[in-house]
């Protein structure tokens, strides 16, 4: 792009121009050269006042943060409403309405920026960089959804997050994917969270924003590669519901840790579950878990593994994580532009490449010694090495926790959502006969049939 533009600059007009300049049609150039001046001095014109240059800047001062406060107010109201609708009113329609409103406000009107997912990076950067400032509003954007998740489960994901709302409303024909695929890909958000925090802390590189598939829709503008990514994610989302939430969202990774602790959480039946199994297959997110004991087939959902093997496996995955972190450090450090620049300058200095880039030209013009650039690059690479090591440790720990979780005997007595994975979308409500009774759609007596069927299943030999 740049070289071609330079090429047009050097085209016929260039020679013609310099020809003219050499001929003296450009007296200021050679005059300043003769007098050893690098630039022309502004002439003094008696009786003429120069325009006020600062007036231009006064017209372009920052606006107040009024809208940001409105955003936080909207966030809190929408979270409250979504939690009430999901847990008390039990209405999927209500959730979809709130999702539509959030999508309109936070998505298309406020153009999806700054969002709680991206605000994570700002908070991380504040903790790491003392010269970086973050407004209170941005902190609230992260803290409020986490606190609501701690109280009510992931109602933020259900209807308030503009990205979640977008995917919820576009999941037209969701299919269930095999649980093992779901669980394995579901580990990626933890790695992404670790990497995003690491790149933010190490070099202020906002990884999450680089892979935001929905901002191109909110702004109706992006470059070609972003459009391809965005449209790909949305097309995938038509059949595999919420691909971003499940397989990429780093805030979702935090919610998966926090949501199991939620004080109140959406329940599938409005009253005590009769274990009729009708909801078993309806969740596109594989989030509905059957009871462990007293389930219909009595099989164990626990990983058949001894404690010794468990310890070995856990140590193994942690070590694997750390080792991969060791190798990842130098590779990921290339994301930092100072390291890219240092590398380029080094290649140029050592004569391994011919020509310069815009960045290396500007660097040389700045007069900063090359050794200082190398030193800084080495320092940043060191930070990346440590950062990646910690990310490896974190991801190893996550995998170990996953192994532990799988080997643990769940204590469910009824069909319930797995709180970490449940988005509180409310799809399962209408499949529950008790809910149908609650809404007065079927007779209370008729569900005895289901209860009886469930009893029969329970007695069925495996």
């Amino acid at each position, binding site marked *: 792009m740049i070289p071609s533009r330079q090429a047009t600059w050097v085209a016929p007009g260039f020679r013609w121009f310099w020809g003219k300049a050499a001929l003296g049609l450009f007296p200021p150039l050679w005059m300043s050269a003769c007098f050893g001046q690098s630039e022309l001095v*502004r002439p003094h014109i008696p009786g*003429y006042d120069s325009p006020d240059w600062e007036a*231009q800047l006064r017209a372009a001062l920052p606006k107040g943060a009024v809208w940001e406060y409105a955003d936080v107010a909207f966030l809190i109201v929408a979270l409250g409403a979504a939690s009430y609708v999901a847990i008390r009113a039990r209405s999927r329609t209500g959730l979809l309405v709130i999702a539509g409103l959030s999508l309109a406000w936070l998505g298309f009107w406020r153009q999806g920026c700054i969002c709680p997912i991206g605000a994570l990076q700002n908070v991380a950067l*504040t903790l790491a960089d003392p010269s970086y400032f973050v407004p209170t509003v941005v902190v609230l954007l992260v803290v409020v959804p986490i606190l609501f998740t701690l109280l009510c489960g992931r109602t933020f994901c259900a209807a308030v997050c503009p990205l979640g709302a977008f995917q919820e409303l576009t999941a037209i024909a969701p299919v269930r994917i095999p649980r093992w695929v779901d669980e394995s890909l579901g580990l990626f958000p933890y790695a992404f969270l670790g990497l995003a925090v690491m790149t933010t802390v190490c070099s202020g590189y906002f990884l999450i924003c680089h892979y935001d598939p929905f901002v191109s829709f909110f702004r109706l503008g992006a470059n070609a590669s972003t459009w391809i990514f965005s449209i790909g994610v949305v097309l995938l989302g038509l059949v595999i519901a919420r691909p971003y939430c499940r397989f990429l969202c780093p805030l979702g990774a935090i919610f998966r840790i926090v949501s199991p602790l939620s004080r109140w959480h959406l329940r599938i039946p409005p009253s005590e579950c009769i274990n009729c199994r009708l909801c078993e297959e309806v969740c596109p997110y594989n989030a509905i878990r059957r009871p462990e004991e007293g389930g219909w087939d009595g099989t164990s959902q626990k990983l058949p593994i001894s404690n010794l093997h468990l*310890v070995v496996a856990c140590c193994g995955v942690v070590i694997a994580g750390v080792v991969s972190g060791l190798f990842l450090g130098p590779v990921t450090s290339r994301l930092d532009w100072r390291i890219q620049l240092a590398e380029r300058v080094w290649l140029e200095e050592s004569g391994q490449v011919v020509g310069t880039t815009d*960045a290396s030209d500007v660097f040389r013009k*700045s007069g900063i010694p090359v050794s200082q650039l190398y030193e800084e690059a080495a320092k940043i690479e060191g930070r990346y090495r440590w950062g990646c090591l910690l990310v490896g440790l974190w991801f190893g720990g996550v995998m170990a926790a996953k192994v532990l979780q799988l080997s643990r005997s769940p204590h469910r007595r009824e069909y319930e959502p797995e709180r970490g994975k449940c988005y509180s979308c409310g799809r399962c409500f209408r499949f529950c006969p008790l809910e149908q009774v609650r809404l007065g759609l079927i007779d209370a007596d008729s569900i005895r049939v289901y209860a009886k069927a469930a009893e029969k299943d329970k007695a069925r030999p495996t």
Partner: protein
Amino acid sequence: MAGGGKSPASFGEPASSDTPQSRETRRGFLADASRYCVLAFVAGAGGFVAGRRGEANQLVWQLDPDLCIGCGNCATQCVIQPSAVRAVQFYPLCAMCDICTGYFDVSYRSLDTAAENQLCPTGALIRQFIVDQAGVPRFEYHVQREICIGCGRCVKGCAMMNGSLYLQVQHDLCVECNDCSIARACPTRAFRRVPASQPFILKRKARRLLGQADK
């Protein structure tokens, strides 16, 4: 590490000594305890971060004119169209040339305001005749902010002489993306965050000039 603490699997095993009720209370207690721990941690961390940083110190995007090469990415990469970056004229640095390298295209036919002679694709640069000083005409060049698209052609042209024209982010237009997409595409990394209380960056030359003027 896996060895640290009891593995959850071992909780379930000595179930014979536990009644289901005591197990339930223990689970409830653990859930409550961890809930409060997370609550305290999130609220504490949030309060710490928010308390440490005031509203007045909010950061905004700005480009360093000393690093700018006028590549044109500002006009094409900004999420709003036309771009939030516009040219500004630092009048004290402008030499009021007749043959302005920021105003005239290199292939100009005559020194007039005809569109084909202008560098600016939108005609946002205004050439105003001021005075004829002993046969040397002096012109003032103004940027019309509303028409400027921030392509930086005048900046590139002016940089051949004094460099009084340079680009700045107009904060009233900028939507302050968390990750500025021009910054991402800037070949010389001229974009950085600056405090909202000092939202513009002067050229080094301009700072020097103002310093002299102050003395």
